[in-house]
Each structure stands twice: as structure tokens, then as C-alpha cells.
């Protein structure tokens, strides 16, 4: 659990972060959204003390994060940034092994961990271990960046616009990978982005920041249904609201008994994509399949009801 307690950061005359308090429960993803200059990155960087707050405190599992020397604290917290920040003069294996070697793991253990992580990210260890970062594609570099952040098995992972430099298709894949890894290891993740779509897709909770202030910190459905300020509403984008709401639900959860004609929809599909599919194929209902078996159907008007503003 990460507790940010009345953290303020002042640079000269400018208050970059203004008395922000928020708690990230263990094993959840908190996404901090805001425009550039909103203080979102600064706030995240107070967690691993890349920024020291002017006042306030950050506690990790109840312990003040100033209890340890900063470099020891940082070795316990995974850190991945936009454009990956890989060391260009080191191989993939050396990059991934950075924190374990700082922690003094023996070489065999590091090598094993590197191979495990490469496999986790669907990169063949034998082919990638000795490559240099510039020999990788952008998507591969980004995966190595996240693998490096996870190398020492941290409980907490901080990510600063980790998918910002990726094209939309690779980004969607990277986001899915992150969700799978988070579900598997139960890592607590704080992720910074300017993209509300990404925040809704990834976050268990979303923190919206503007001009250093935390405007709203709530679950995605709450933020969409009840934006705290006009700015939050604008960030969500009023015309997008019904679709964003739909994107939070899987079609499998909406399936009802019954039949429908046509090709089945996968239960893992978001309700938003399901609606799009029904509109496109001109159907009023479609069967829903989980692992190839039909489990029921979903109706277009049920989806439409789902998209309406919650009371």
C-alpha cells in the first residue's frame, strides 16, 4: 500500500504539486492522468524520491519512504519510463540485470531471472540476451524497459508514460501484457499518462490532476459518471462518455440466456467493441462464446442501457 499524505512540491515560486493525498491499495493499478505541467510525473516521482517533497510524506506499507537511503529505496521499486531509457552501451541481458546486480545477486541467479523475464515478454532468450538496445524495435525496447523494471521482483512498479512512444497496435498489446503481468504477480502499479483512454483501460483507480491539485481520485466508472469538475468532464470527453462506460465491462458479464443468429462474440470482448460489432453487422443480438462454447447472447438494447448515465 502506498500512502501519499499531503505532499507538496514547490520549485521557487511555482507550486508543482499542491497538498495531494491519495492511497493506492496493494495489488491495484492507480493511473494518474493530467495534461503536461499538471504535476502528475512530479507526484509519482515523490514515491521513489526522485523528487523530495517540500512538505508532506509518502508511506509504503506504513513506513515512511525516507527511512532508507534513496538509492536503496529505489532498488525495491520498479521504474519504467517513456522511451524506455535503456542503457545504449549495454546488452539486453545487462540492462535487465541492472537492479539485481546492484543488489549483489550472483551471476547465475541474474542470468536465470533475465531468461525468465524475456520469456514472460515473449522474447526468445537465446536470440535477445546479447543484443544491443538499438538492434530492437520500439515495441521490443519498451518490453525490455518493463522487464528491467520488474527484474528484482518489486512489489511496486512506477511507470511514467510507458507506452507513449508506441504505435496504437503495439500499445494495445503492451497494455494487455501489463494487465496480465499485474494480475499474475499482484504488483502495485502507479502509472502516469495524459491519455484518458489508457487510464480507463488500465486503472483500478484514476487520479485526475490539474495545476498541481488532485481534482478527483476514484474508480473509472465513478469518474465517467460523476466527474468532480468541469475539467475532469472535459478530459473524459463528453461525447465519449457512453462508450468509455461500456469499455469497462466485458461482454461475458452481460450475457443472458437465449439464442441469437450470426457469428458469436468472445466473452472477453469489451461491451464497447461488442456494440460496435452489432452496429456494424446490423444485428440486434449476437451469441456470446467463452472458450468456443456458446454461453448465451447479448442484446443491443441491453448494451445501450448499459451506456446510459448511471443514476
Amino acid at each position, binding site marked *: 500500500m502506498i500512502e501519499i499524505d499531503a505532499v507538496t512540491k514547490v520549485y521557487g515560486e511555482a507550486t508543482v504539486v499542491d497538498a495531494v493525498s491519495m492511497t493506492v491499495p496493494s495489488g491495484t493499478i492507480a493511473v494518474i492522468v493530467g495534461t503536461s505541467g499538471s504535476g502528475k510525473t512530479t507526484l509519482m516521482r515523490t514515491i521513489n524520491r*526522485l523528487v523530495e517533497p517540500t512538505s508532506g510524506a509518502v508511506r509504503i506499507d506504513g513506513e515512511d519512504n525516507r527511512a532508507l537511503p534513496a538509492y536503496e529505496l529505489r*532498488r525495491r521499486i520498479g521504474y519504467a*519510463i517513456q522511451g524506455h531509457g535503456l*542503457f*545504449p*552501451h549495454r546488452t539486453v541481458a545487462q540492462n535487465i540485470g541492472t537492479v539485481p546486480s546492484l543488489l549483489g545477486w550472483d551471476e547465475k541467479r541474474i542470468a536465470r531471472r533475465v531468461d525468465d523475464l524475456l520469456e514472460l515478454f515473449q522474447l526468445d532468450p537465446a536470440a535477445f540476451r546479447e543484443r544491443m538496445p538499438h*538492434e530492437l524495435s520500439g515495441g521490443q525496447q519498451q518490453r525490455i524497459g518493463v522487464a528491467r523494471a520488474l527484474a528484482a521482483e518489486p512489489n511496486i512498479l512506477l511507470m511514467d508514460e510507458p507506452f507513449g512512444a508506441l504505435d496504437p497496435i503495439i500499445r494495445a498489446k503492451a497494455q494487455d501484457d501489463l494487465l496480465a503481468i499485474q494480475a499474475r504477480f499482484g504488483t502495485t502499479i502507479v502509472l502516469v499518462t495524459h491519455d484518458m483512454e489508457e487510464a480507463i483501460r488500465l486503472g483500478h483507480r484514476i487520479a485526475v490532476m490539474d495545476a498541481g491539485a488532485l481534482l478527483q481520485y476514484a474508480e473509472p466508472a465513478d469518474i465517467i459518471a460523476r466527474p468532480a469538475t468541469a475539467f475532469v468532464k472535459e478530459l473524459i470527453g463528453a461525447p465519449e462518455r457512453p462508450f468509455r462506460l461500456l469499455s469497462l465491462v466485458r461482454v461475458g458479464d452481460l450475457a443472458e440466456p437465449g439464442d441469437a443468429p450470426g457469428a458469436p462474440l468472445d466473452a472477453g470482448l469489451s461491451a464497447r467493441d461488442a456494440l460496435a460489432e452489432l452496429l456494424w453487422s446490423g444485428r440486434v443480438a449476437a451469441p456470446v462464446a467463452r472458450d468456443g462454447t456458446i454461453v448465451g447472447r447479448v442484446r443491443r438494447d441491453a448494451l445501450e442501457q448499459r451506456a446510459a448515465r448511471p443514476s
Partner: protein
Amino acid sequence: MAQGISTAAAPARLALDKLGVLLAAIVATGALALPFATFRANRIVLGEPRGILDSLEPALAWTLLGLLAAAGLVALVRTPVRLRLAAGLLALVALLLAIGRAGTFLTPEGNGFARVSPGSGFWLLLFAFALMVTDALSRLALSPARRLAGLAATAAVLAAILVCGLWDDLSMLREYATRADAFWREARTHVVLAFGSLALATLTGVPIGIACTRSARLRGPVLNVLNIVQTIPSIALFGLLIAPMAWIAATIPGASAIGIAGIGAAPALVALYAYSLLPVVSNTVVGLDGVPRQTVDAARGMGMTGRQRLLRVELPLAFPVILTGIRIVLVQNIGLATIAALIGGGGFGVFVFQGIGQTAMDLVLLGAVPTVVLAVAAAIVLDALVEMSERPGVREARG
């Protein structure tokens, strides 16, 4: 690419090489209009010019002229790069051998006073074919290792010519023969001055550069002071150091015992060191500044201490730029060290200034030619090292 276009446009006609036209003109002038060698009855009288046909046995002279004409033609017309390289090298070797032969041919049997030296035509021809070879080499874009091998081969050829005594009848080597001991002593001094000041500048300049990147307050003043030092004319700096160094030698106990004095090698070393600092410090600063910000941020974020960050990330990434600074300093110092002779510091400059004093150009050359050879060799070696130390990908990440 230019060659490709020419063959596509006019396959039947011979196209001219742009640089080749200039080279051919120089070769024609050097071979036909200017003296190949100069003959003097003794070392200080005015020389008599001798053309190629007067400098060598007729058979040899015509062979040389034929070779030069052929090589000039290869230069003039667009030809494959490897052919140009071979022709240029062949012409160079022929010139080097011929000038030695001319020395023997022109010196009367048993005459120890007569001096034969290369004439302006020889130097012009040497320049033209050296240009042809460097042009071909740069078009070939050789790997650093091959360039080093080429340098070693060149050194071997020159050493072989010297050891076999092919140039022994040339004026410059006549001057050498009478002062061989002094030559090697001054050579040692020259190398010690150039490399010693470089070593001092590297040992102190890199830490100063690191300090400048850590503290903005230090950076401005330090770089400004070093910039000003760099603008002081070298002769003036050598002279300016006489008084303070003499004062140090006189007042600080033990200073004169370790060789510090107003004149001599110590002030020369200090002056060279002062000139060396700016390139080393500023390249260290530029190199460290050029390390991508994200890379440094990632290093911090993963828990590297300041020292770990410097040694494992920043210095390795800045190394090629720092090495470039070291290259600048070494080449600069090999040249500047000649001036040390003015304040009794020794080095090849001794011969240059003696030669000027005696209006004996051969003696000037005895000091100047080794200096140039040393500087060129140092430049080639360090350029190769800089290129080898650059890692692909690092530069893109920086840009």
C-alpha cells in the same frame, strides 16, 4: 554514385575526375616545370635547381617520368578507387626512392660538403600523390583496424628506406648524421613534453569537467578562464611563465631539485598543460551533457548511487567525446612542443630554431619533418580509437 551516373550517361567516353584534373595539373607542373632536386656546393650557399632528367641516370629518369605520367592519367580519368589507390601509392614509393637515388647521383664522389635536397617539384609531386591516396582511402571508407594496419605498413616502408640508407646522401640525413645523438635526445624530450602534458591534462581535466557538469556555478568561470588561456599566443605564454616559474624555483624548497626552473622543460610542460586543459575539460563537459537525459533518469530511478551512475553509465557513454578531446590535445601538443626550444625546453624545435639561425633549411626540416610525421601518426591512431570506441546506437539515442 558519381561513377555510376557517368557510366550510365556516356558509357563509351572517358569522364574526367574533378579532383583528378587538379591533381594532373599539379603533377605536370611538379614534374616538368619545377626543380626535382636542389644541389648546393655546401650547406649554406644558394642552391642550383635540377629537373628530373638532370637528377637521375637517364634510364631511371625516363622510367620515373613514365610512371608519374601514368599515375597522373589514372588520377585525371574516372577510374576504380582501388586502381587510384594503387597508382598513387606506386607513384609515392617511386618518388621516395628516386629522391634518395638523386642524392647519390648528384653528390660528387667523396664530397662531404655538397648538399642535395628535395626541390619544390618533388614536394609538389609528393603532395599531389599523397592527396590522391588520401582521397582514395576516404572513398574506400576503411575500418579503423585497416587504417591502423595501413599506418603500420607505411611506417615499415619508411623505416626500411632509412635502415637501408637509401636517403643517406640527402641533405636532411647529412644533418642527422652529424647530430644523431642530439636528434634522439630531443626526440625523447619532444615525446615526453607532448605526452606528459597530455597525461597531466587528462588526469586533472576529466575530473574538472565532471565537476563542471555537477555545478553550474563552477562551469561558467572554469570554461571562461580556460578559453582565455587558449587565446594567449603560444610564444607569449612560454615567455610569461619564465618569471613565475623562476620565482617558484627560488622560493619553494625542493622545487628546483625536481627540475622546476624559469627556463627549460618545466615551464614548457606547464604551458603545454595549460593549452591542453580546455579541449579535455570542454569535451568532458560536452560528452557528459550529451548522455541522454532519460538514460540518466533511468539510472537514478533504478537505484544507482552517484558514483555508480558516473562510472557505469555517464563516463562510458561520454568516452568517445572525451577521447576526441584527447586527440585534439595530442596533435596540438606535438606541434606546439617545438616552441619549447625557445625557452630551453628541448624537443625537435631545437633543430628548427638552430636551422633558422644558420639559414640552414635542411636543419629546419630535420626538426619539422619528424614533428609532422609524429602528429599525423598520432591523429590517425586516435581517430581510429575514437571510431572504435563509438557504439552504434549511442549516437542516435543522444540525438
